[in-house]
């Protein structure tokens, strides 16, 4: 079961920091990050991809689910 990070409503750069902290503490985990702005999606995508993770984004109304896995 993947860990979930709820970064909805968090302003830049908090969603990325939350993602980074979770990946730093457990690099082989799968993560699901919830955000509600395009900017957060772009920033997390860029960050996780640069660390070699696979990133998938699902849009759900005004919210986004970002799946991050090795």
């Amino acid at each position, binding site marked *: 079961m993947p*860990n979930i990070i709820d970064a*909805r409503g968090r302003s830049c750069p908090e969603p990325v920091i939350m993602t980074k902290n979770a990946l730093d503490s457990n690099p082989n985990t799968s993560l699901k990050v919830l955000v509600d702005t395009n*900017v957060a999606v772009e920033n997390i995508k860029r960050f996780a991809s640069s660390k070699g993770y696979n990133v998938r984004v699902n849009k759900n109304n005004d919210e986004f689910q970002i799946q991050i896995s090795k």
Partner: protein
Amino acid sequence: MSGKRKMFFYGGIIGLIGAILMKLGNPGNMGLCIACFWRDIAGALGLHRAEVVQYIRPEIIGIIFGAFGISYVTGEFKAKGGSSPIVRFILGFFLMIGALVFLGCPLRMILRLANGDLNALIGLAGYVTGIFIGVQFLKKGYTLGRSIEQTNISKYIFPIFALVLLIFLIIKPSFILFSTEGPGSMGAPVIISLILGAVVGVALQRSRICTAGGFRDAILIKDTHFLWGILGIFVFALAGNLVLNFSKFNLGFVDQPIAHNDFIWNFLGMTLVGLCSILLGGCPIRQTILASQGDTDAAITVFGLIIGAAFAHNFGLAASANGVPQNGKIAVIIGILFALSLAYGVISSSKKNSNKEGVKNA
């Protein structure tokens, strides 16, 4: 086009427009300056009585319309807010004090550097120092809390504010003040300023360029994505100035337009700007763009900037070419101490609540 190249290109548009607006009549090294322009607007509205810096800068109106329009089209125009508005207001207030002691926002700092003003290098060192300090707080869990959806109408307030400014600019009612001399009297033609402002607004909204974010991400997550945007601003402004404003290009520390060469206060003024920008989540440009796309917290921050500018002149805090007044130095120190205590206070109180948030198992 790769992400970095795109950033460089977007930044280039902004830098080039900075050089063009200076050529067309804006004050020296002030083709674009978010802090100075909001300060001029505060003066035009009569919130301060510094007669040389009162003008409703059309570039600001253009930037807001540009960012509003493009975010409306892309579906990013959304009412958000409720994340510590009063804290953001005060941080915006002190950010402006720091900017008016240095004499420019981070964007003007880059444009000043791109026309040879080396005092901006001292400012840049201070800015990065402030950002570095702010990042330490971010690493320790600094947050202003979640924003939530706001009532839909609230997203229109800021664009309507820009519309009202435009009406004032056009019909010039007697209660709106316009400088007849000094920097406030200098400006590119209104229509051109509006249009180029709108182009800048679109470029900033699409690129998400933030001068503070560029350095922050490089320090925090080793990501240089936004730094390429800042580099683009610098390179294109430099090229633009060498072609368009060559007679005004002056490499050095002395005799720079609307600037002083007091190293310590150039440094500390921008340290305050950098620190406040990180604690706010974005520099004055970014705040103005976010406010234009419905972020009411950013709009409150911009009102903090405006009121900060008013106080900076009413209380004699703002610097001039003659240097930094005593009151301005005291205000910068108070601002830095305030921002540090605030960030410390946020971290202490959020540690107590840390059990309620964070990673949960699904």
